[in-house]
């Protein structure tokens, strides 16, 4: 079993971290379909977070479905930031309980973060314990663990943020039926939306600029680098489905690696043209996009093939 997560999706990485801290729960099913997780595309670019779609509710429902526990959730928008923070402090202070909280914070205000550096950059981290003025924090996405003061946590806690409260004692081992439902649902989506939307955005921007990449193109598509990390969910899915079958996954890992490199390549291409002012190399760009679409289909076919093996194993036929 894979023992640690990579940077995939900051909210799901927090859920997975809590599963690891609470015992021997298999966190991999949680990432089923993370490759399809929603992101926003507007006239101003791609955004890894959305103001219009409630992704929090979706992943919370999934966590509850897979691990059979009730998750508490409260929002600053409903009760105000200060009241929500007081409620968070009360949640963490409950004596004798194995309680965790996932906090929505502004990356800009985290003292240990160097990412982005613009205000209103939503991010999630896990509060493990709060004793007096000291908050034990784990941020699996940024690979950071340490102590923050109450003032630092309060400062980072977003004005329009939210808290997800999980009681570790309520967690149950993952439910096969729920995983089947989610996997089958997610595998119906055959398109890689990030690839489609990123390619369309770059293509449109270049066309509007008469064959050149606009100088602000990189800024507009920079979140694609964050969204692309979600494709690592493919690895977790195959690892989970083939667990105990001693199947070689080297080729699959290679395809996932190539996929990650492919997104970097598209961003490098966009950056190079935007920064040098050279005419955009459309044929090279389209070849890359086409290759990546084919690669994504191959990855999905591998998962399709692994699924019945997993089902057989679960039904005791292997």
């Amino acid at each position, binding site marked *: 079993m894979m023992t640690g997560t990579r940077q995939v999706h900051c909210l799901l990485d927090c859920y997975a971290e809590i599963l690891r801290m609470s015992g021997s729960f298999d966190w991999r099913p949680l990432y089923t379909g993370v490759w399809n997780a929603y992101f926003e595309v507007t006239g101003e670019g791609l955004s890894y977070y959305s103001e219009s779609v409630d992704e929090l509710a979706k992943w919370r429902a999934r966590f509850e479905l897979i691990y059979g526990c009730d998750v508490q959730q409260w929002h600053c928008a409903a009760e105000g930031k200060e009241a929500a923070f007081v409620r968070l402090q009360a949640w963490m202070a409950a004596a004798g309980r194995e309680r965790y909280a996932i906090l929505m914070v502004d990356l800009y205000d985290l003292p240990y973060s*160097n990412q982005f550096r613009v205000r209103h950059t939503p991010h999630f981290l896990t509060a493990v314990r709060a004793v007096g003025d000291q908050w034990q924090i784990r941020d699996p996405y940024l690979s950071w663990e340490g102590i923050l003061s109450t003032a630092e946590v309060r400062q980072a806690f977003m004005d329009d943020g939210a808290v997800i409260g999980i009681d570790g004692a309520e967690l149950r081992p993952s439910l096969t039926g729920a995983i089947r439902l989610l996997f089958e649902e997610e595998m119906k989506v055959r398109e890689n939306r990030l690839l489609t939307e990123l390619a369309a955005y770059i293509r449109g921007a270049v066309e509007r600029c008469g064959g050149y990449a606009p100088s602000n193109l990189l800024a507009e598509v920079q979140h694609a680098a964050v969204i692309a990390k979600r494709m690592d969910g493919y690895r977790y899915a195959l690892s989970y489905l083939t667990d105990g079958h001693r199947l070689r996954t080297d080729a699959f890992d290679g395809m996932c690696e190539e996929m990650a490199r492919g997104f970097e390549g598209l*961003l490098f291409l966009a950056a190079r043209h935007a920064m040098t002012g050279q005419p955009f190399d459309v044929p090279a760009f389209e070849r890359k996009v086409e290759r990546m679409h084919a690669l994504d289909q191959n990855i999905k076919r591998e998962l399709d093939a692994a699924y019945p093996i997993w089902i057989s194993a679960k039904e005791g036929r292997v």
Partner: protein
Amino acid sequence: MDGYARDSVLFSYPAIIEGGYLAMTAMLKADIVELLRRIIAELTGKPSLEDELQPEQDIQLAGMDSMRIIQLVIRLEQYYAIGFEDHELAIRNFDTMDAIADRVLQKTGLLA
């Protein structure tokens, strides 16, 4: 004895040439690292990095996320008039100033 001395001088030529080459490469590498420090300090908005960043330090931990690394690489391509191939353009290939400087030297043909 005479023959030995002549042979010895002849024998040492490659070493002298190699020594000069290594010294030159080291100087060029130091120049590249200095340039990298300046660019990284600017891209991260942290002027102190110009003095503090060490060649073997992971630049992502110093605030160079993937998009900043992409900008850094393109600036190097422009500055040194080099072009990295597609297969070289992986973020993990540019994780320290030391590794980046070696890649630039390789591109310019000064490092095998």
